[in-house]
């Protein structure tokens, strides 16, 4: 079912550059977004949608598809940009139908009924992981071998519902569930460690009965791919530890004036900033190639 596949790290990196540029243009045109977290998750999202997910944007209801649930639903524009790049929509169509009352298809927080490629309508934090637990239980009951991936932010893990779900996932031995934490270290008003420290996250997850894979640099495609390559095959007939991938990323990645700056959590972008941001992304890409 999968198309748009890219198998090499170089090709995936090239795709990240395009997605970042398209995303910035998209946010500039729609006037709102959450660029900090949308830029930090690009490598993981690209790795999933262009290599690891058994998924096609052209067949979004295929019963055997892998499920990717974006719990940090305020970062949906990264997914929309990928869907457009993979041919589900044009950028013009998405801009034209962004939060336009009764003709809207796309929103700052995603809605699965408007955008069939979205698995779960999200926006309120702390919801995706419990839903993913249910999804994984359903898959097991139906003897389906697809994997359920869910991405949360790190600030999002302040929400207690995540820990209820983390407890339940290991209790039920959901080896078909993968939690990805986009750990960019910042939340809306500052550093996660200062607002509500979640560390040592790896040890906490392990103590809850999870297997943890840590990506030292979650914006390095080779490291991201190495992490996904470590995932054990789904064996629906046996209970095993669920897997958490902690991706240490940089909020606002590739745009120097956004990086490590919580003030770029949400908002729009001016034309001058857009040009500057695009130049940063291109420069980063060239340096990476060298």
């Amino acid at each position, binding site marked *: 079912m999968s198309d748009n596949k890219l198998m090499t790290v170089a090709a995936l990196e090239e795709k990240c550059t395009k997605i970042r540029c398209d995303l910035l243009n998209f946010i500039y045109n729609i006037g709102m977004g959450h660029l900090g977290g949308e830029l930090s998750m690009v490598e993981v999202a690209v790795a999933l949608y262009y290599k690891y997910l058994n998924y096609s944007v052209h067949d979004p209801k295929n019963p055997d598809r892998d499920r990717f649930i974006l719990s940090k639903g305020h970062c949906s524009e990264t997914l929309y940009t990928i869907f457009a790049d993979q041919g589900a929509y044009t950028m013009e169509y998405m801009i034209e139908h962004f939060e336009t009352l009764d003709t809207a298809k796309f929103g700052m927080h995603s809605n699965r009924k408007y955008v069939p490629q979205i698995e*779960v309508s999200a926006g309120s934090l702390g919801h995706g992981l419990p839903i993913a637990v249910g999804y994984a239980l*359903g898959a097991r*009951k139906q003897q389906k071998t697809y994997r359920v991936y869910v991405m949360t932010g790190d600030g999002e893990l302040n929400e207690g519902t995540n820990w209820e779900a983390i407890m339940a996932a290991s209790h039920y031995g959901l080896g078909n569930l993968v939690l990805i934490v986009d750990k960019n270290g910042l939340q809306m008003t500052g550093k996660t460690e200062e607002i509500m420290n979640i560390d040592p996250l790896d040890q906490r997850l392990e103590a809850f009965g999870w297997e943890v894979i840590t990506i030292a640099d979650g914006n390095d495609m080779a490291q991201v791919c190495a992490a996904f390559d470590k995932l054990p095959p789904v064996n629906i007939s046996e209970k095993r530890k669920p897997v958490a991938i902690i991706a240490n990323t940089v909020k606002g990645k590739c745009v120097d004036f956004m990086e490590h700056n919580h003030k770029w959590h949400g908002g729009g972008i001016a034309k001058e900033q857009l040009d500057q941001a695009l130049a940063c992304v291109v420069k980063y890409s060239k340096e990476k190639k060298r």
Partner: protein
Amino acid sequence: MSVKTTFDFDQMLSNAREAYGEELFRMAEEGLDFIFTYTDNVAPSSSAGKLLKKYPERCFNFGIAEPNQVGASCGLALSGEVVYSQVFGPFLSLRSADQIHTDIAYNDVNVRLIGTHAGVTAAGGPTHNCIADLALYRAIPNLTVVVPADAAQCCKVIRQSYTFQGPMVIRIDRGGSPNVYADDDYEYQIGKAIETLPGTDLTIISAGSSVYWSLMGAKILKEKHGISARLIDMHTIKPLDVDMILKCARETGNVFTVEEHSINGGLGSAVAEVLCEAGFSGRFKRIGLPDEFAVLGDPDEVYKYYGMDPEGIARTIVDVMSKPKLL
């Protein structure tokens, strides 16, 4: 439609909390496929416990963690399952309000949330009272809210909800409430109110186990005061059977509501909104729990204290009917 009530019978206790489990078990035995999620309050010895024993692969205990249970039920439904999810009522509505709103209703999934211990039936004081849930549910789009009057009707709801499209809350009491209907040989349709008792002087609109108290209250009105009260079983709170409310208001001129819920935001409020917007000028009174945390005591005593027992209902109605209207 005529229905046979237990009006002339001694109290025949039923138990909706047992009945829903029996019905789910029957459905499973018939080969219907569904998932059952639950909190740590389903006893192995209960009828739902039979389901757990015989069909463990489709039953999931979420412990004492209602938001996760409701969220996971959404995920199970998204995977293609019909999900019945039993939660202790006050903790369903209050603790999991966010999940009901966002996971179940906004995602518009086939989850039937069974909230138990309606009103003050749990006993144990206000932490375990379920008095604000209907006010919350009424404001959540996509949600259908059903409050069966007795155990047999609960079975009908459980059965009918299997093929129902969209999210639903089924509100039942702790158990041990009287049967309203003498048998289950009557037509039941979610969203369509039942005229439980004919009457001409006024209409009582009720739901849940207070339908039985209203029935007995109507008996007192007839026998002691010569007042002919019609009784409507408004088992579906949302969407409300507006046509039935307006028909009764037109035909009887006076409307009373009885509910085991705060008088703010529940059935009484819903009926008042309909009547007011239609220009109703008859007598109207909400009977239910007042705007205070309830006194402590045995549920029957608490309901009596607040005038929600048959004598209290009759007393309030006679009082309102005998006084001139303010407007």
